[in-house]
């Protein structure tokens, strides 16, 4: 049975269902059992499962990551939650030197079935240290799976897959996505890693958006529709391993590829996807990377608006790419409820 629920409800449901079916699954992290319950994503889990299965930890990201890893190699399945990506930087030694290499470094005798959840912040003055994305740094490291689901349906399904996986999974969320609502089946289900989702069909330009930028890409496609440009909007869902085939199939048709990162551009997913498409075949295409301005994230809204791309600025860049005109301004007024992605497809 399917019904409309929010992104955080989808996360909570996935974790709850997996905790019901596997007593080895437990949650740890700063504030996971407090009244705010990580923006509601862990609400009710303490009451349902008790303090053995969900507990607060000291402000000690590196140590706690190593402790979660130690529990994972001993047969447990920890879900370690960080309310911002930025805090994961304190745990980079454990994530890169230990977690990612646990299976390989000991010749396959260990596995590290653990999920590291972390939310990207945006807006309301998040500023330089509450707005960063960690996936471009971590997609450079073999051994980690990285996911960044956009829709509630994908959030639930890929969370279940992440918990069930014997590999460590970096689970990237976005604060703005917590307002997303969509059709989500009530029962437990897991989605495969490495399968991108097509959010809109089109033949004129391939538009790939990571995490919340997938929503901005949908907004851009709505703007572009008014001038007869139809974007094929793709949400990678999984960043490692990347579903390059789905992107490539579209690029072969559109000959134009735009990737919108939820990060700065150097060494990020835009560079990776464009390079991979060039390497994969002899299709000639034009490409464009979009993402954060090359500055730390400012706090004041006037500068923050210039720091991020959004539906309108993405649409303008694409219009320029296709029609060589930089003066066009879309008439479309973005109504969130109209463009937000709702379907489970």
């Amino acid at each position: 049975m399917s019904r409309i629920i929010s992104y955080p409800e989808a996360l909570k449901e996935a974790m709850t269902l997996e905790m019901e079916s596997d007593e080895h699954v437990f949650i740890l992290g700063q504030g996971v059992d407090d009244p705010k319950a990580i923006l509601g994503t862990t609400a009710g889990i303490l009451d349902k499962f008790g303090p053995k299965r969900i507990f607060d930890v000291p402000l000690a990201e590196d140590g706690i990551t190593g402790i979660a890893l130690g529990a994972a190699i001993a047969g447990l399945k920890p879900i370690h939650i960080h309310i911002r990506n930025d805090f994961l930087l304190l745990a980079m030694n454990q994530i890169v030197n230990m977690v990612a290499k646990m299976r390989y470094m000991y010749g396959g005798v260990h596995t590290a079935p653990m999920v590291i959840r972390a939310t990207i912040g945006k807006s309301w003055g998040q500023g330089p240290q509450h707005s960063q994305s960690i996936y471009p740094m971590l997609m450079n490291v073999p051994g980690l799976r990285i996911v960044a689901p956009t829709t509630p349906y994908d959030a639930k399904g890929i969370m279940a897959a992440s918990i069930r996986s014997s590999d460590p999974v970096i689970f990237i969320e976005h604060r703005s996505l917590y307002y997303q609502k969509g059709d989500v089946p009530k029962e437990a289900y897991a989605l495969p890693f490495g399968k991108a989702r097509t959010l809109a069909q089109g033949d004129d330009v391939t538009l790939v958006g990571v995490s919340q930028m997938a929503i901005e890409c949908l907004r851009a496609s709505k703007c572009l529709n008014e001038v007869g440009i139809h974007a094929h909007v793709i949400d990678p869902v999984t960043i490692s391993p990347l579903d390059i085939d789905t992107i490539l199939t579209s690029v072969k048709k559109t000959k134009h590829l735009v990737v919108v990162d939820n990060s700065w551009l150097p060494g990020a997913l835009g560079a990776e996807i464009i390079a991979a498409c060039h390497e994969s075949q002899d299709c000639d295409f034009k490409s464009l990377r979009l993402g954060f301005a090359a500055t730390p994230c400012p706090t004041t809204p006037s500068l923050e608006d210039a720091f991020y791309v959004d539906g309108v600025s993405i649409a303008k860049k694409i219009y320029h790419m296709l029609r060589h005109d930089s003066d066009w301004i879309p008439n479309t007024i973005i109504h969130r409820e109209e463009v937000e992605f709702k379907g489970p497809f």
Partner: protein
Amino acid sequence: MRTSENSHKLLEEVYKSLFLIRHVEEKICDLYPTDKIKSPVHLSIGQEAVSVGVCKALTREDGVMGSCRGHAMYLAKGGNLKQMFAELYGKRTGCGKGRAGSMHLADVQAGVIATSAIMASTVPLAVGWAYAQAYQNTGNIGVCFVGDGALDEGCVHESFLFAKQKKVPILIVCENNEYAIHSHFLTRHPSKDYILNWASSYEMKCKRFEDDDPLALYDYVGGVADELRSGSGPQFIECYTSRWKEHVGPGDDFKLGYRGTEEVEKWKRKDQLIRIGKLLKPTVKQKIEQNVLKEIQEAVEFAECSPFPKPTELYENVYGGENE
């Protein structure tokens, strides 16, 4: 007389373990110029007795974790000797199938859970592993060996805090050889008592051993293990010891001038291998030595005869199954 000195069987086991570690390390020194050992080696010569005394007081199912100076711990806990030499040779029959080398030895069946080349990174790992034992009521305890240099890392203190807060069944053993590579403990810390003061501040039961008598360690850790199994929370040992070889490699390093020969000579005069050997009947001692040397020779031959991993195996064990 302590219980440990009454037990001939224990004395024989301790001697066998000390002799094994010393002679494995010396065999590595002999082999090193041949370039057959494809790995940096951080030898345990001089420090054997700490691992032996502690590990003999543990069950096979108890887990130990340590650093890249981990040969003594691996062997004292019963890690497979053939697989160790094969790993040093980079062979596919090694305990890490050639992916580990000397610095990442593990033998999970023997309770050697992990060693790591990033200092202190196995301390939280050990706390988490031990936490999982309590979570699953296995009755097993964890032991983490950490050097006096590694103890300065932040994750050690983060781990102490968690271990105390959750009453994790973990014993942390600081092997204090007084040097972080070439830097003396007192150039990095205000006083000799700093380590114990740190550990005590986390309200752990702490004990310092001024030398590395394996029987004293065995007796003490036996009691600690019982307390850990009863759920009383983490404990800490600081044990002084001495690294006789250079930080990494098979030679000595007195020519560097950062420490004098007398510092090491005073430890050599109380070499636990010789001391424990004198407590055994000569015939018993000789038989142990013959058996161990034969075992080492067989392990080296096993490593020599084993194949290298094929280049096509490069991608194995990066990720789990494709269908996940």
